[in-house]
C-alpha cells in the first residue's frame, strides 16, 4: 500500500559508506592517491546525497610531470524508482553539484628551433572548480545493515577559477579538463543506520 501521509517524508535511515574503486585505485596505481566517502538520507522516494573525497594525481608526461592535490564534494538528490520496495533497494536517477578546491603544478622542458631548450616550473596555488552531474545507479541491501551501491555519473559544465599561467589538466572529483564531459563510476560499500522503526 502506498503511503500518502506527510509522515512518509520523515527520514527512515542514513546510509554511510566509502567508494571501493577510489580505494582500489589508490592501492594499485602509483599515479593516484585518494578516497571518497558518501552519505544519503531518504525523504520518501527522494534521497539527499553528499559525497566527499580527496584526490591527488602524479601524471608523467613525455616532457615533464603534472601533479595536483585537493578535495572535492558533491551534493544532490536521487529519485528512487523502487520506492515501494520494503527493503528500500534503489534504482535511481539523480543530479549533483560538484565543487573542488585544489592546487596543481607543472614541471617540463620545451625547445623550439633557433632557441635553447627552456625549463618551466609553474603552479596554481588555489583553484576552484565547479561542475554538474547526471547520475544513475543501484543501491542494494546485502545483509542486515550492509549495502552495496553503484553510481554512474555524467559530468559536464566544468568551470575553473584561479588558473594563472598554468591551465589545470586534472580536477579532483571531475577528471581531465580537455573534454567537455566525462563519465565517472563509483562502487560504494555502505552501512544503513535506521532513524525510526520500520513499519
Amino acid at each position, binding site marked *: 500500500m502506498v503511503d500518502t501521509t506527510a509522515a512518509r517524508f520523515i527520514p527512515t535511515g542514513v546510509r554511510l559508506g566509502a567508494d571501493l574503486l577510489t580505494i582500489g585505485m589508490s592501492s594499485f596505481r602509483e599515479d593516484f592517491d585518494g578516497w571518497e566517502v558518501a552519505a544519503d538520507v531518504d525523504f520518501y522516494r527522494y534521497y539527499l546525497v553528499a559525497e566527499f573525497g580527496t584526490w591527488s594525481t602524479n*601524471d*608523467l*608526461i*613525455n*616532457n*615533464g610531470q*603534472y601533479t595536483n592535490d585537493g578535495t572535492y564534494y558533491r551534493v544532490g538528490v536521487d529519485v528512487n524508482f523502487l520506492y515501494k520496495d520494503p527493503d528500500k533497494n534503489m534504482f535511481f536517477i539523480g543530479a549533483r553539484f560538484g565543487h573542488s578546491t585544489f592546487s596543481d603544478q*607543472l614541471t*617540463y622542458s*620545451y625547445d*623550439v*628551433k*633557433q*632557441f*635553447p631548450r*627552456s625549463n*618551466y616550473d*609553474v603552479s596554481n596555488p588555489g583553484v576552484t572548480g565547479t561542475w554538474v552531474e547526471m547520475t544513475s545507479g543501484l543501491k542494494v541491501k546485502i545483509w542486515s545493515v550492509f549495502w552495496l551501491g553503484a553510481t*554512474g555519473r555524467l559530468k559536464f559544465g566544468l568551470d575553473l577559477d584561479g588558473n594563472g*599561467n*598554468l*591551465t589545470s*589538466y586534472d580536477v579532483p572529483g571531475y577528471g*581531465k579538463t*580537455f*573534454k567537455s564531459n*566525462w*563519465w*565517472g*563510476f563509483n562502487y560504494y560499500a555502505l552501512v544503513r543506520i535506521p532513524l525510526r522503526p520500520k513499519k
Partner: protein
Amino acid sequence: MAAISLVWVLSSCFDQGECLITNSNIIRVSLRTKDNQPATITFASVSVLNDTVLYTNKSLTALDLPVNPGVLEMTYVFDYGDGTDTLSFGYTNQHVVLSPSCGAFPYQRNLSVTGGTFKTDSVKVTNPSLLKDALENVRIYY
C-alpha cells in the same frame, strides 16, 4: 549493443586526449603602406637582437618572427641597408598539458609592442595569440 556501450564508456574513462598541437612561437607580421595596402620592403637583414639572422637581402610583404618561449620579451632589428629600425614585443606564456604522450606546451598570449624605433601608430597588434592558424599577428605601416 550493451558491449558497444560498455566499450564507449570505458574508452571515455581512459581517454588520454588528442595530440592536436596548435601553439606557434611565430609572430606573423604583415607589411603595409600608410593606406593599408600590402607593402614590399627590401631588407638587408632582419635579425633577433644580438642573435639569429632571420632574413638576408630579401624583398618581403610579410615576416615570420620567432619568439623564444624561455624569455618574455624579444627585440628584432630591421636593417634596410641605409638605416635600421628595432621593434620589441612582450608576451606571456600559458602552459597547457595536452596529454601524457603529447606533453606540455607554452602558448604565447597577450602579445604587445614594448619598444622600438617605430612610431606608435606604425605598429598594430591585430591578434595577441601566437597560434598555428593565425594568418597575422602584427601590422607594420611604412
